């Protein structure tokens, strides 16, 4: 993954294809309309397939043909994954699908359509916007508004804090631990995985905060991408709060297209499993991501079965508030279990980590390449984040004095405690 200026041509290619596809789709009917949509989707998915999945598929194909003692005639491509490719491709696809479904009029201004795909704040890592929300905003006139500036700037500042203070600090322990699995104790790996859960959350939601805040300063309203996901009481609730723009994308365009839950139960479960496995594949061309998605698919299927069992046995007391905290902890543990595969460099490493974690003891030595105060500081940061999200989700900046004091504090502490090691956002690679 890299920022290579010439790759702007790829973006140009999808923009041109989808712009004209939208216009043609609007005027077409029946099979022709479907054909235009298929053509547009193939162009978009084709770009993804070449740049993101070709070498992965080739690698697996080579292993397969070798097992039959054949040789693979296909060459490997020396290409680098363009930064944010999956994000803007999905945003472009959402446009053509919406035009096809008749929910959105085709955009006839090439400049405005290009801006929809390339809108700078969310170009590289989302939120993946819908045309109904974003396109009309490009036709509105925007003026500077100080109130909007204050709330946008504060959100950006806290996004920066989440990235450089929390995510990048936690990554120091996570990177070390996951790079030295052999020497790590079970307890170390449990702590590292917990840290990773918060690292990836702060890394990605920090970016989303900065994107949403920057857009708000300019007068644009982008959709929310996160809603305190680690307070979820079930995995299905987690997916309504985590990377909302992607999960709703898959729900609207893949899950519903497959029939959703309006089919027989085995097919319904298959739909869930397909959607989550594809979602895993969306993240990266690696079996670890596919497995991560598949695990979440299985969690969701078990959750449906569990709900049905509770209904049948009439154990509604299990949904009482008393069980909120245990349910939240169980959900968090399950999510962390799946994160192991997301973070591990290979599936075998992932299983090795799970095995070690299962054998943990409280007497295990914790060796995370951290001095003890830094470890305590990390726990403090996580507690701070959770408390902030529980009680002060929105930072109040209505009074100018609040705004100046709070943003100064956030920015100063971001500088003072931030880790500036030029570590990219995790989701830039997708």
């Amino acid at each position: 993954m890299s920022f290579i200026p010439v790759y702007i041509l790829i973006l140009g290619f999808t923009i041109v294809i989808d712009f004209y596809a939208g216009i043609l789709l609007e005027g077409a009917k029946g099979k022709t309309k479907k054909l235009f949509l298929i053509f547009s989707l193939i162009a978009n998915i084709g770009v993804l397939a070449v740049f993101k999945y070709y070498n992965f598929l080739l690698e697996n194909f080579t292993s397969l043909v070798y097992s039959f003692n054949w040789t693979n005639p296909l060459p490997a491509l020396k290409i680098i994954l363009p930064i944010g490719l999956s994000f803007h491709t999905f945003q472009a696809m959402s446009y053509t699908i919406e035009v096809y479904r008749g929910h959105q009029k085709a955009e006839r201004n090439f400049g405005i359509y290009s801006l929809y795909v390339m809108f700078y704040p969310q170009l590289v890592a989302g939120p993946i916007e819908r045309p109904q929300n974003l396109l009309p905003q490009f036709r509105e006139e925007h003026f500077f508004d100080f109130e909007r500036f204050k709330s946008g700037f504060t959100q950006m500042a806290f996004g920066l804090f989440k990235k450089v203070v929390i995510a990048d600090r936690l990554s120091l322990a996570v990177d070390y631990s996951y790079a030295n699995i052999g020497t790590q104790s079970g307890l170390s790996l449990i702590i590292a995985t917990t840290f990773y859960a918060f690292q990836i959350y702060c890394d990605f939601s920090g970016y989303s905060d900065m994107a949403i805040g920057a857009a708000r300063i300019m007068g644009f309203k982008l959709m929310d991408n996160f809603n305190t996901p680690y307070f979820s009481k079930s995995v299905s609730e987690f997916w309504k709060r985590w990377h909302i723009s992607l999960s709703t994308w898959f729900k609207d365009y893949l899950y519903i297209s497959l029939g959703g839950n309006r089919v027989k139960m085995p097919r319904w479960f298959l739909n869930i499993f397909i959607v989550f496995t594809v979602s895993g594949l969306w993240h990266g061309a690696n079996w670890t991501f596919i497995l991560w998605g598949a695990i979440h698919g299985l969690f969701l299927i078990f959750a449906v079965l569990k709900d049905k069992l509770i209904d049948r046995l009439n154990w509604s007391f299990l949904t009482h508030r008393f069980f909120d905290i245990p349910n939240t902890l169980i959900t968090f543990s399950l999510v962390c279990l799946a994160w192991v595969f997301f973070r591990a460099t290979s599936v075998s490493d992932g299983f090795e980590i799970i095995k070690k974690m299962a054998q943990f003891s409280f007497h295990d030595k914790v060796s995370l390449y951290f001095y003890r105060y830094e470890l305590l500081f990390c726990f403090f940061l996580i507690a701070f984040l959770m408390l902030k999200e529980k009680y002060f989700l929105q930072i109040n900046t209505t009074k100018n004095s609040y705004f100046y004091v709070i943003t100064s504090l956030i920015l100063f502490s971001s500088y003072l405690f931030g880790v500036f090691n030029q570590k990219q956002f995790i989701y830039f690679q997708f």
Partner: protein
Amino acid sequence: MRKLISFSIIVICCGIYYASNSAKITEKYTDFRERGMLLGSDKIGYGGLYGMCYLSDYRQPFFYDIKESDDTLVKNINLYLFCDSYLYYRVTPKHFSYNDKLYKMKWFETETFLSQESLDTTKKNVLVFEMTERYVRSLLDSYEGATNMLKFEKEQNENLKQQENTNSKSLIDKFQEPFINPNINSNLELNLFDYKLFRPLKELKANLNFHIFNRVYDGVFVDTAKQQLYYKPTVEGEQKMNAFYPLDSGEISTLIDNINKLNDFYHSKGFDEIYLAIIPNPVTMINPSLGHYNNLIPLLNSNDSLRMNLIDSYSLFKQNPTLFYSKSDSHWNSIGLQRWLDEFNRKLKLLSQQNKVPS
């Protein structure tokens, strides 16, 4: 008015981006600030390692007061110096005795090279390979690089042709080159934040991270007694810069072989004397017990088959090493440089007297 402000902001941002994208502008601007103007640089002037980590305990002014040689001496030596950037920027012809002309060339300077029509045979021609210990194993593991750095006219034309060929860039490279410099992040940081004004903040952050979290900037290693900063790759890690990274007899033989080839090559080009000067890593001299020193310099110096002359800084510095190194730099200090110059000038004196060329 609002449009004017907006436009001005855009112009300023584009200007900063353009300047930071250009290596030349950034270099010139850094030189400009090095002289203390425009608030001055807080990175330069206190040792390179301080400029990386900003630990206030190690902020020491870094002086370069070296003596000039006696101007009345006969000038019968032309000196060719292949050196690191430290020496390149510090020495002038006046620092060397009996020196008529000084030709300097930095290691790793791939775009330029020294060129001569031919050596001036009315003078003694002396060639020096000066390098820090951390680069010895990479610079001398093959000798082609060093032979290509000094060209004579005929060879130069061929070399230029070769360079033209290698410099012919693809259309894609030409398209993207004006937009992004791989060092854009560090250049932006330098141009926007490398001012003395920011020093208290930088030191506060560095001290806090060091004293509470025991963390320093990645490239810096603080010794166990907290008396000295070392360049981390010379102390830790599996790389050839590391003074404690194992060295086998095969590698020593290869290095000796390459040094000898270099020696023979340049003698055949007409040089009268050729010297090798390896400047020991600070950790090698001050705290070799931090690990198991691989004895690179002693092994090279004591090897009987080595044909190139040595300027042996290792033995010169061994007695009182802390005197010759700054506690916040990866190089010797000006006392170390002066000691080295004195030793080298002593050799030049002998050389000048041994074989006087009639003027």
